[in-house]
Every structure is written in C-alpha cells, then in structure tokens.
C-alpha cells in the first residue's frame, strides 16, 4: 500500500469512516510514520481553519415571509393528501403486528420475519372504486414488518415506503435516489405475480416464506396503470443478492437453535519475532516499609463544563530515578511510585531561551497523540533563564544530613558524602556552607565555612558515621536556625536535606514539620530534599516536605545520579529564578471536546488559586525546563473509546460559547524570588498558527516518556501504547544528550518491556480472521450502495 492510499485512509479515519480493519492498518502505520501523524494533524488544522467561514443567519424578513407562506398549508391538509390516512392504517398495522407477535411464539424463537397484509390490499377491498378512480395514487409497496427476538416492531419504519407522486413537476424535483434505479441489482429473481384480490391464505403463507428469506430488504413495487387495480409486474427487487441474504438468514436461524454452522478454522497463531522468552526469575520483592502516596489519574474533563485546568509546576525528578532503581533490580515499580510529570521533567528539553527581561519562555506544540490517533497531544514547555556564573548570587547552604542507623547502607551515607563532595567542588569563595547532622539528637558539624575552604568541608564530611535513631524534626529545626543565623540578603538561602525519609523520634508530627517549613519558606529559606536508599524509603513524606518548602526533590540511587543532581544541574537546584509558578489553561469548547492532564495529579490547584498570591506553587530553577502534556479530544472527533459519560445539560444556565478558533489560552503566573506579587504571562494557542515544521524531538521524546509512564502505571488511558512505539520514538529523538540520560532511558524501557507481562500479547492474527461470534442482527436499512 503506497503512501497516497494510506493518506486517503487516514483521511477517512479522521472522519471516523474507517472500517475496523482500516482502522487497525492506519493506527499501526501512524505509530511508525511521523509524516502521516503530521498529515493527520494537518487535517485538524484545516478543519479549524475552515470553521472561520461560520454560519450566516437567515434574515428575519425572509424567515417571516416563509413563515407566512407556510400558513396556507395549515388548512385543508387532511383533504389534500392520502398520507395521513395511510399513516393511520400503518399505525393500525403496527398494532396488528404487535398482536401477531404475541400470538405467534415461533417468531420469537426462530427470529423469523413476518409479513402482514399490506394496507393497500385491505384498502382495495374496502374502497376499490375510489382507488380505481384516482389516477395518481400513492401505493405503499410492501410492509415488511420485522419481528425480532425482542419483539421490537419496526413496522413504522419499514412500512412507510411510499412511491412519489408521478406528476412531472414532482419528478423533476424527485431526489435522485428515488428515481434512479442504479442501486437495484439486476439479477433479481422474479416472484410469480399474485393478484392482490386473490390472495388466499396459502398464497400469503407462501409469500411470507419467500419474504422471510429476503427479509425487509425485499421491496415489491406495483405499478398501477389505467383501469382496475392489477398489479402488472411484481418484481422482487432485493438490494443485496438474494443468495447472500438467504445464507445469512440460515446461519442466523441456525445460531438460534444452538448450532452455529461450521465453526471458522481455528486461527494459526504466529509469533512474529519467533523469540523465546525465558521465564525471568524475579526475586520475591523484599518486604519493605516504603511508602508512596496514592495517585488517582486525572480523568478526561469536558471543556464546556470545566474549561479551566490549573496546576502548579513540578520540578521534581525523584520518581524517575526511583523507577530506575526498581527496574535495575528487575522489578516493576509500584504504580503509585510512577509520577509521570516527574519522569518527563527528569529530562532537559531544548526549548528556546526567554527573551530579555523575562525569567522564562513558553513553548507549545500540538500533534497527534501517539497512543490514540483520534486525540491530540498538547505540549506546554517552560524554559527557565540560564544564569551565567557571574550572575549567580552568593549561597548560604546548610547540608542537613541524616546519620541515623538506617543510613549505614552502602547506597546511603557513603553516597551522600560522595554527592556533597562533588557539590563542594563547584562552590565559590562567596558561598557559605554549614553542616548539620541528626541521629538520636542533632548537632552542628560545621558552621558557616566559606566555599573555597574545600579541605575543611570534605574532612568534616568524611568524619560522619551512621548510628542511632532518627530525630528528623529536631534536625530540621536546627538546620533552619543555622540558616537563619547566616542569612544572606539577596542571596540563595537553602537547606539541603539528605535522608531516607524515616523520622522516628521527636517532632515527627508531620503537620508540625510542615508548618515549620512553611514559616521558614516565607522568610526566604528554601528546602531541597534529596532522597537516598531503599527498603524504608518514605517517598510521600519527602515529596510533601519539598513541596511545602519551596524546594525540589530528587532521588539519588547511584553516583551518576548524584553527579546529575549535584553537579550538572546544580544551578537548577540551587537558584530559584521564579517562585509560585502556576499555569492555568483555558480550553476553547469550539475546538476541544475534552482534555486530560497527564501526570501532575498532586499538583492540581483550584481554579481560584490561580489569582490568589497567597497560594503556594512550584519553583523554577535557573535553566530548568518544565513540561506538561495534555491529551485533548478535539471537538467533532469520532471517539471510539469510552470517554466519560456526559452530564445532563444544565437546566437554569445556558453556556454561551464565544466564537474563536483558538485551541486554548495559557496563562502563567509567577513571582520574582523575593517578591510577593505575581506577574502574568498570557499566550494563545491556535492550530492555525502552529508551524509546519516536523514534529520536534522535544515532543517526540516527552510523549515517549509519558507513554512509558502510562504503561508502567498500566493506565486505563493508555490506548494502544506499547513499549515498541516508546522505543521507536525515543530512539529517533535522542537529540543533544551529553550525559547519556536519554540513552539510559532506552535501556530502561527495554528492561521494563522484558519484565512486564501485562502487555506481552504477541499473538498475531491474520488480517481477515475474526473470532467466531454470533452475527449481530443487521439494522433494517435496505439501502445499499454500489460501492459497498
């Protein structure tokens, strides 16, 4: 199949007109082909462009005039036409059909179709003269009253077959499909023409039998010529071929009686790669006391009812490194350890630098959603300003190190020391370092040593040893005291807490701790939390602390990660360029049916919080990139999957939608690090204004990471996400990757793929094979088209 044909299919797919097979073909292809995804996106963009030519209103004068004209049809309606009388008869027939259904149980069990006497036959008997006189009579042709298992009588529908009046004028106006016979198959089998008057019961039964075969699709036309009411030629004009209908019928009745014909041959099962998957021995998960806060995924929200999506940015990266630890131990991470936004934000993206005077830039990109081509994925990227070395303000750092007994493991205290030593290497003379430790009680190891006195700092770090219980609360209080004492105005005052999160002595009342941290935050002392170790890791508590303390939270599982967090991205971690960064997005219901924020579950804000400067939100470090992804169901999309059921329309309120072809408006509020007043940045996103450039590496990679997250969470919104497509997209979008983080990601995906049994369904079915299943009763839609 060449590309042109595929595009035609994609086009049909976009309109929701692809058959199941075509759909499968298109979706497989879309996964592989960036060009076609772009094409599909182009279709959406074109549709919203076309909407610019909106509906005109009909001028009231004309409307009035037509209305007046209509008035004259009001009288004499009943005299003029035969329709009303016929429809009354039809109603009667329907009733009769009902009665027939209840009388004749065979109809139920055999799913046969019954035919009742057509009204014209009765009419002929009743009013032969009257009918004969009328030259231009409308003859109801057949009354295929279908009776199916549910005793649902569709007589009303099938019975209303009229033939148009045969005046010349009428014919001229007659819709094409009424007059032209192209749809009617030529090879029809004529049925012996019974005269209407002489319909004996036997004949009727016979006819009934015949009609049973061809069901409602049988349309018998009678032509009435001058003189008498003799049917000249009775043709059974079936729209499909008779044989076919017959065999379907047979199969159906057979199914009813419990025999479903010859069963289709059992499918050959191919394993396309022919790979043998050795059973992987997964070590039984060690009993741990790790704690993760429960994450309930965001649902799709209706853009009319909930046009606003408000969130705080999240610069944490802990979840990704934690997941990496799990995968490196040959385990899948627990669902609640997977925070997709932290996975996405672990990586740095290549967004443009902000223009002068702004702390950050906003980038948006819209494209087809890779795991559900019916949807779109909107990327909102924020790039913090990168600071040059001389611009960096002096720092007052307090290392708060947990030296309790639980920190003795090789990947805890030794790693903490290693990490801080790396950090110390990049300190300058104007920076100040203090070290506070806590175990059973807390103490100051080093008080305000200048940054260039590296020997003293490293020696102090080396002396630390683990032992005792954990009075974390006390430690935090002391650390804040020291930080307060050495406070640098216009500097960067920060407590860096390194712990496994297990506080068991002293003020471990979480509420009290949080209150303390919030209070200090307002005085300008921020908190960074570095998580270490495993087994008793308290993810939920640490994230909360960092969140409240205007800080960030990273998880360090090995030396490479320590290098990343404490050296490569030190600036990002230490120097806040904007605080309380909140994003509010207003979706345009003209363009968006529903949307879903991917990740950020515990960062959602109430819509009122956006303009409330007292509400805390995330901080943005120098050179930080933050990425949010929205999965959007475009308005007018034909969604195949289950979108949340709609709410009843409001009774007392009418929502009026303003005309606009924007997709959405992004509003962003932030505060300068020492300010208490927020500033607003607004940006509109319009499909029309998006560039035609190919999908960027940023988008490809971020969407791959998100898809990976959906798979690990086994999300119900994962659509047709697969490890294969994650790998494919990520591989093509490695971009500038100096430290090999993205390369490492590929390795993790492969590892997860081999560990994850939930998604390993490699049974290949030949394209035309389907499960043997009872045929659905076809809709009684007798019109079939040439092309079908």
């Amino acid at each position, binding site marked *: 199949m060449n590309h042109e044909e595929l*595009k*035609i299919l994609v*086009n*049909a797919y976009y*309109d*929701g*007109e692809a058959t199941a097979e075509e759909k499968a073909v298109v979706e497989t292809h879309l996964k592989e082909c960036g060009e076609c995804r772009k094409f599909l996106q182009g*279709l959406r963009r*074109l549709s919203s*462009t*076309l*909407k*610019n*030519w909106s*509906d*005109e*209103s*009909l001028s009231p004068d*004309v*409307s009035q*005039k*037509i*209305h007046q*004209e*209509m008035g004259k*049809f*009001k009288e004499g*309606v009943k005299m*003029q*036409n035969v*329709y*009303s009388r016929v*429809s009354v008869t039809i109603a009667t027939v329907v009733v009769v059909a009902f009665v027939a259904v209840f009388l004749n149980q065979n109809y139920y069990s055999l799913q046969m179709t019954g035919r009742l006497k057509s009204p014209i036959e009765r009419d002929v008997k009743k009013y032969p003269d009257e009918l004969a006189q009328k030259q231009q009579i409308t003859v109801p042709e057949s009354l295929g009253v279908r009776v199916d298992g549910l005793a649902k009588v569709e007589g*009303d*529908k*099938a019975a*209303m077959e*009229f*033939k*148009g*009046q045969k005046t010349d004028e*009428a014919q001229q*106006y007659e*819709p*094409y*499909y*009424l007059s*032209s016979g192209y749809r009617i198959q030529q090879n029809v089998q004529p049925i012996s023409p019974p005269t209407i008057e002489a319909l004996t019961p036997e004949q009727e039964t016979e006819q009934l039998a015949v009609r049973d075969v061809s069901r409602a699709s049988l349309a018998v036309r009678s032509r009435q010529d001058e003189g008498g009411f003799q049917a000249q030629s009775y043709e059974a004009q079936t729209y499909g071929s008779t044989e076919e209908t017959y065999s379907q019928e047979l199969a159906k009745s057979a199914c009813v009686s419990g025999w479903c014909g010859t069963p289709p041959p059992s499918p050959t099962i191919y394993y396309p790669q022919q790979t043998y998957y050795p059973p992987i021995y997964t070590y039984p998960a060690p009993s741990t006391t790790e704690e993760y806060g429960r994450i309930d995924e965001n649902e799709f929200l209706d853009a009319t009812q909930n046009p606003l999506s408000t969130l705080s940015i999240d610069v944490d990266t802990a979840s990704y490194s934690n997941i990496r630890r799990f995968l490196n131990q040959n385990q899948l991470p627990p669902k609640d350890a997977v925070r997709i936004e932290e996975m996405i934000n672990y990586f740095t993206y290549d967004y443009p630098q902000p223009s002068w005077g702004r702390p950050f830039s906003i980038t948006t990109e819209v494209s087809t959603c890779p795991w559900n081509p019916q949807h779109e994925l909107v990327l909102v990227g924020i790039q913090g300003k990168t600071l040059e070395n001389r611009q960096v303000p002096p720092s007052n750092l307090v290392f708060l190190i947990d030296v309790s007994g639980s920190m003795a493991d090789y990947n805890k205290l030794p790693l903490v020391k290693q990490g801080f030593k790396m950090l110390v290497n990049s300190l300058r003379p104007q920076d100040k370092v203090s070290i506070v430790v806590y175990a059973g009680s807390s103490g100051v190891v080093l008080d305000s040593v200048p940054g260039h006195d590296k020997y003293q700092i490293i020696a102090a770090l080396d002396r630390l040893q683990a032992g005792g219980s954990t009075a974390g609360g006390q430690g935090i209080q002391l650390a804040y005291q020291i930080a307060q004492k050495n406070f640098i105005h216009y500097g960067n005052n920060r407590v860096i807490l390194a712990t496994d999160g297990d506080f068991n002595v002293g003020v471990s009342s979480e509420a009290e701790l949080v209150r303390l941290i919030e209070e200090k935050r307002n005085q300008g002392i921020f908190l960074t939390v570095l998580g270490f170790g495993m087994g008793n890791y308290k993810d939920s508590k640490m994230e909360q602390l960092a969140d409240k303390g205007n800080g960030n939270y990273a998880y360090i599982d090995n030396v490479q990660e320590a290098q990343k967090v404490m050296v490569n991205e030190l600036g990002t971690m230490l120097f806040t360029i904007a605080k309380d960064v909140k994003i509010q997005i207003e979706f345009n219901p003209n363009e968006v049916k529903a949307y879903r924020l991917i990740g950020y579950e515990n960062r959602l804000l109430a819509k009122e919080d956006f303009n409330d400067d007292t509400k805390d939100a995330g901080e943005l470090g120098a050179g930080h990139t933050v990425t949010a992804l929205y999965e959007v169901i475009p308005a*007018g999309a034909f969604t195949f999957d289950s979108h949340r059921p709609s709410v009843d329309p409001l009774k007392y309120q009418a929502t009026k939608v303003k005309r606009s072809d924007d997709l959405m408006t992004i509003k962003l509020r932030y505060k300068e690090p020492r300010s208490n007043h927020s500033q607003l940045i607004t940006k509109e996103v319009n499909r*029309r*204004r*998006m*560039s*035609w450039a190919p999908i960027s590496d940023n988008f490809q990679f971020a969407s791959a990471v998100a898809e990976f997250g959906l798979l690990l969470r086994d999300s119900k919104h994962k659509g047709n996400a697969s490890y294969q497509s994650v790998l494919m997209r990520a591989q093509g979008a490695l971009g500038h990757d100096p430290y090999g983080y993205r390369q490492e990601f590929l390795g993790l995906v492969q590892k997860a793929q081999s560990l994850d049994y939930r998604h390993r369904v490699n049974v290949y079915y030949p394209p035309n094979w389907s499960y043997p299943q009872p045929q659905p009763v076809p809709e*009684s839609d*007798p019109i079939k*088209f*040439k*092309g*079908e």
Partner: protein
Amino acid sequence: MAQTDEELIIDYLRGNDKAMELIFLKFKVQVFNYAFRLLSNRADAEDVTADTFLAIFAKKYSYQPEVKFVTWLYTVVRNACIDRIRKRKKHVSLSVKNKEDNEAEGAQIDVVDEKAVPVENIEENERARQVQLAINKLPDEQKEAIILRAYHSMDYQQISQIMNCSLPNVKILIFRARENLRKELSFFMMEGAE
C-alpha cells in the same frame, strides 16, 4: 423527550401543523447556509430556502422513512439549488470560480464581509472570505462534498446519498478537496506561524 427529525416529518405528514413549525425553526439556518455556500449568493440562497420549505410542506416530494430526514432535506435543497442555477438561464455555472470571473459574467457574488461590521471583526471576516474563496475555487463535486462534511457534519454515507455518488467516490472527493484546500490556504494558515 424531544422527537427525532424523522418522527417530526411523519408527524407532519399525518397532519400535525405544529410539526411543520418545528421543522422550519430547526432547519432554516442550516438549509439557508447550505444553499448560501453552494450558490454564494444571498438572494438566491434565500429563495432556495423558501422554495425548499414550501415544497416540502406542500408535500411535493415523498419522504422515505428509511432515509434520514436531514439527508432527504439536503437532497431537496441541492436540487433546488441546481434548479435555481438553471433558472439563471445558464448564464452562470454552479462553479463560482472567483469573484472577478463572475463579475465579468454578470453574476453577483456575496462575500461574507459585505455587512457593516465592527472593526474588531475585520480580521475575522477577512479570514472567512479567504476560506470562502478557496472553497469556491474547488471543482464542483469536491466543493459540495467538503461543504457537507466540514460545515454540516454529514457522514460519508449521507454525502453519497445527497450527491448521488458512490461511497468510495466520496472518500476520494473529500480527500482531494482537503488536499487542494490545504495548498490553497497554506499561506493563510502559516500566518503568524512560530
């Protein structure tokens, strides 16, 4: 519960006058816009709208209940439009190629921005005009198909019934129309691209 369109028309055919009002109210804007998009002429479109409704209510055409009412209605409108164009005595073809050509032929083309509009709508109207011209440049069949699809949300089967052509044909028509429009409107969609 609201009646379906099909129930409405059958109701009317049975002699319920109220159904007539309902049908008119429900479909007048739709019908007018369809005619307007096909004819690009307000007066003609108004005439067609009147013709259509009066013809339907005069029961000039028979309605077949197995066809959706909307489909049937659009078929009537379409035929009325063709009729209208014939009545212009073949001076003008249905294809309104572009404004200049047709002005030369003496036909009147109403473009969207003829009404007095507030200043802030000028840009909007300019966009609408661009789209209209691009659509008018399409070959007739593509134009009809894309109008039905894009502005009246008809599915392919309905389009094939209205236009009296096969389903695969509709598929191709819409695809081609979109390709052409994409080329035609590319400069315009690029506007302000990042």
